[in-house]
């Protein structure tokens, strides 16, 4: 859908709220979280995405999170094959996909079994009754029918979804197998009705996307689901979640991975230099490569290397040759790149490395999230090898952090690490598209003057050495991993020079603190408890802090985007609170850095389960510290 259409849609929805299910009463809700769950083949990701788009058009704030199985296609009906997609939307601020869904749409018993524990007690379960056969129950590992018990604790709505789907397309001459493929659209239509979402954009998408017969089937099934809600006795009311107050602008949904990719494109357009991407596929970072590979018309050269080492090395080679160089990976790949990064530190070349952290160690839980690569980013290279580290807080911020990372890399001639994570990578939120005309634009210039040129002659303030690229007459020079003589860049084994260069490398990175704006706190500037977070836990921590404050708790929230160097006012801020709590999805990493640096007795709240924090977990940890 193009922008004009989209905004027309949105306009028609908000200006003329023509709720089509007038015949049933509807209740107003502030916020709802729905999880769609089914077999990998059931199209749950698609269903979730379409519901998200429609919800965005309905003007709600929202946050989403898909949950893929680790297997490509596990055997149908098994727990291993369950795929889920959660969306949380509201008429007020939304910052996480919610701890517990209010509604679970489960396409089979495995989907029920895998997700039930997460659903809010008393929540609604919409089940495909046709799939609750003995065989499927067994496949899901149920010894006996769970429904009698489940019905006591939840509002269970059982719908013969498969049969209704087949009936809806009976006259289209599709095979039964083809026909049942559309059943996710039934569920989608039903949820559209139930929460008063507009169907138009989805109908248009169906028409544009599928061949005629399949498109017609999907269309009919979608509408059948919609009308089923309207007519079936199973749903006495429908719900309304009014639009949120949202800053004016043009919006889109964006995931962290897409935003990282686009941020890199933006760095290239705004800095006027072509982008080179060296990568080796690895979950959950591969999509950044996929996205960037689509955009050759920006002059972007993506290079799928033979491994992570080569990916980093090629990127560094491209940086030497004057490109904006990017390499994207996840933990196990980051580790392999460290030797090349170490060379980039010594060669003082600009490079951005994105690590989309996943649960480990080793292969670990590759599709799950964690924040456990911070210490590796800081300390994981042989010898003293300082490197700046940034971390985005939200999917949308993934865009701006890339602009910042490239800016710093080039300004200071240094590799820069950006730590994203599996949660940010896949979760989506509405994102106000920045005004591209207003984005900072400054074309990077290379050094070209032969007079007085020395490859390690440093700029006074930044300590950056010149970016002198091959092809430039008169600047022929050699760089490498042996210690360099300051200034000339020749190999030097002299003790004092090594000390000097080591110190300079540290000072250069430390000096980048100048570029960090003053810290902003959520809550009072001093007091009883400060919660310090970093990375993708931002939404959960902010929500927990806000909720606690709303209940009168004296707590503030500081979120760090610059992890190396640390902001120069951080020590001050920490010193103004009686207690400091550092929640992290690891066994305690930032907390070590803070304790070491500032000798504050910061406490750690850790969770290593491949899952984001729940707001409730954070609230109780905060409450505990506020109490005693």
């Amino acid at each position: 859908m193009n922008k004009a259409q989209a905004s027309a849609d949105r306009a028609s929805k908000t200006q003329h709220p023509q709720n089509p299910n007038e015949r049933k009463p509807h209740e107003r809700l502030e916020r709802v979280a729905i999880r769609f769950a089914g077999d990998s083949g059931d199209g749950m990701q698609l269903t979730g995405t379409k519901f998200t788009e429609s919800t965005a058009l309905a003007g709600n704030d929202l946050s989403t999170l898909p949950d893929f199985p680790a297997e490509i296609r596990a055997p149908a009906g098994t727990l291993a094959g369950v795929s889920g997609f959660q969306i949380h939307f509201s008429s007020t601020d939304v910052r996480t996909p919610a701890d517990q869904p209010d509604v679970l749409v489960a396409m089979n018993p495995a989907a029920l079994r895998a997700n039930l524990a997460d659903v809010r007690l008393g929540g609604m379960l919409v089940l495909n009754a046709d799939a609750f056969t003995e065989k499927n129950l067994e496949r899901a590992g149920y010894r006996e029918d769970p429904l009698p018990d489940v019905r006591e604790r939840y509002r269970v709505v059982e719908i013969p979804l498969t049969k209704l789907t087949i009936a809806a397309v009976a006259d289209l001459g599709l095979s039964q197998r083809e026909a049942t493929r559309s059943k996710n659209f039934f569920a989608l239509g039903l949820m559209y009705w139930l929460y008063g979402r507009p169907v138009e954009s989805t109908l248009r998408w169906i028409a544009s996307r599928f061949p005629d017969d399949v498109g017609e089937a999907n269309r009919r099934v979608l509408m059948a689901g919609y009308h089923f809600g309207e007519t079936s006795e199973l749903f006495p009311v429908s719900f309304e979640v009014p639009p949120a107050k949202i800053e004016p602008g043009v919006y889109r949904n964006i995931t962290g991975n897409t935003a990282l990719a686009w941020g890199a494109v933006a760095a290239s357009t705004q800095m006027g230099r072509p982008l080179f991407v060296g990568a080796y596929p690895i979950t959950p970072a591969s999509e950044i490569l996929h996205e960037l590979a689509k955009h050759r018309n920006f002059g972007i050269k993506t290079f799928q290397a033979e491994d992570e080492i080569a990916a980093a090395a090629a990127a560094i080679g491209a940086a030497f040759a004057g490109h904006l160089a990017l390499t994207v990976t996840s933990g196990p790949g980051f580790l392999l790149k460290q030797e090349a990064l170490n060379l980039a530190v010594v060669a003082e070349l600009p490079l951005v490395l994105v690590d989309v952290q996943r649960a480990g160690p080793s292969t670990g839980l590759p599709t799950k999230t964690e924040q456990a690569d911070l210490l590796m980013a800081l300390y994981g290279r042989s010898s003293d090898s300082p490197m700046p580290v940034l971390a985005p807080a939200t999917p949308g911020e993934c865009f701006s952090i890339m602009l910042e990372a490239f800016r710093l890399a080039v300004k200071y001639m240094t590799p820069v690490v950006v730590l994203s994570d599996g949660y940010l990578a896949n979760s989506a939120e509405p994102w106000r598209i920045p005004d591209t005309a207003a984005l900072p634009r400054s074309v990077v210039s290379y050094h070209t003057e032969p007079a007085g040129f020395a490859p390690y002659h440093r700029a006074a303030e930044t300590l950056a050495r010149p970016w002198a690229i091959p092809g430039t007459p008169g600047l022929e020079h050699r760089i490498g991993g042996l210690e360099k003589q300051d200034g000339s860049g020749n190999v030097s084994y002299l003790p004092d020079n090594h000390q000097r260069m080591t110190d300079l490398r540290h000072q250069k990175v430390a000096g980048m603190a100048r570029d960090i704006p003053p810290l902003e706190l959520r809550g009072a500037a001093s007091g009883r408890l400060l919660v310090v977070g970093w990375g993708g836990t931002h939404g959960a921590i902010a929500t927990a802090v806000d909720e606690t404050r709303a209940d009168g708790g004296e707590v503030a929230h500081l979120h760090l985007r610059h992890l190396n160097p640390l902001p120069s006012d951080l020590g001050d801020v920490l010193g103004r609170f009686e207690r400091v709590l550092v929640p992290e999805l690891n066994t305690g990493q930032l907390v070590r850095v803070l304790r070491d640096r500032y000798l504050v007795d910061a406490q750690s709240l850790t969770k290593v389960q491949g899952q984001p924090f729940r707001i409730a977990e954070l609230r109780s940890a905060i409450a505990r510290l506020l109490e005693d």
Partner: protein
Amino acid sequence: MSEPAVGTVETKLTKKDFETDQEVRWCPGCGDYSVLANVQRVLPEFGIPRERFVFVSGIGCSSRFPYYMNTYGFHTIHGRAPAFATGIKLARPELSVWIVTGDGDGLSIGGNHLLHVIRRNVDVQILLFNNRIYGLTKGQYSPTSQLGMKNKSMPMGVIDYPLDPVAFALGAGATFVARTVDVDSAGLQDVLRRAHAHPGAAFVEILQNCPVYNDGVWEAIEDRRTRVEAGLPLIHGEPLVFGAKGRRRGIRIEHGTPRLIALADEDDPVAAGVTVHDERHESPAYAMALATLAPPDFPIPTGVFRAAERPSYERLLDEQVTTAVRERGPGTLEGLLHSGDTWSVE
């Protein structure tokens, strides 16, 4: 092929122009000296300005090479030079990129990168200095060391079968493969010219003597007196013949297998069934057969084994960019950010 730049150099460069002020620090008598001198001698012929050359190396004695070349240079990390060079060449196809590596750097830790730069046919020149030993780390064996050779890390003798760099390169799908000898200035220069002219990855094995840790390993072919018997010069269109007058022999490859044919001085080798060297076969099978020639049964072939034309990787990548721009127009950030579904809030 690095963009031909004939005419862009105002005054013709000389060997001196390619020398740096850094003291050359190989051991006295090291074969690397000769290679360096010949590279410095040949480069001016290409008519490419000095600033367009980049020498990229890994770690090893041989990998110190870039420090001695007054061009752009990058002495990187052990085994990874092909990957750095790939990045440089993809970013700026107009540069003439040379990889310098050793048998340890290129075939032990770096085997995979060498494999892939060759497979991709990135237009770089690869000089692999094969002294069949780790020089810089003081004498451990390498993947090309001979069976049974005693050394620091295998004091009872090597038990790994040596890798043949030429066979390796052909197995990787190389479009250009050559072999030459450190002390054979003419042969070396010839191969360097050919490598430079080749539009794709040009792989050159240089047989190199390490007088300190593996002295004399290539003696038979380095020594002028024995070279005629020990070597087989490959000349396109000429039959595979070697040996001094009175001891001439030819090589015939039939049903895939090479065998020797004794030749009287007056014999016409082709008529006698000797295979005629053809570096341009589309199929690498023939070059593979040549690659398997080795002492003691056969002489060591030197010269160009294979030179096949295929578009180079960086050219194909550039074409994708051009095609994308032609078909979709140059990308704009505004367009990208607004692609797909958007909505406005007023």
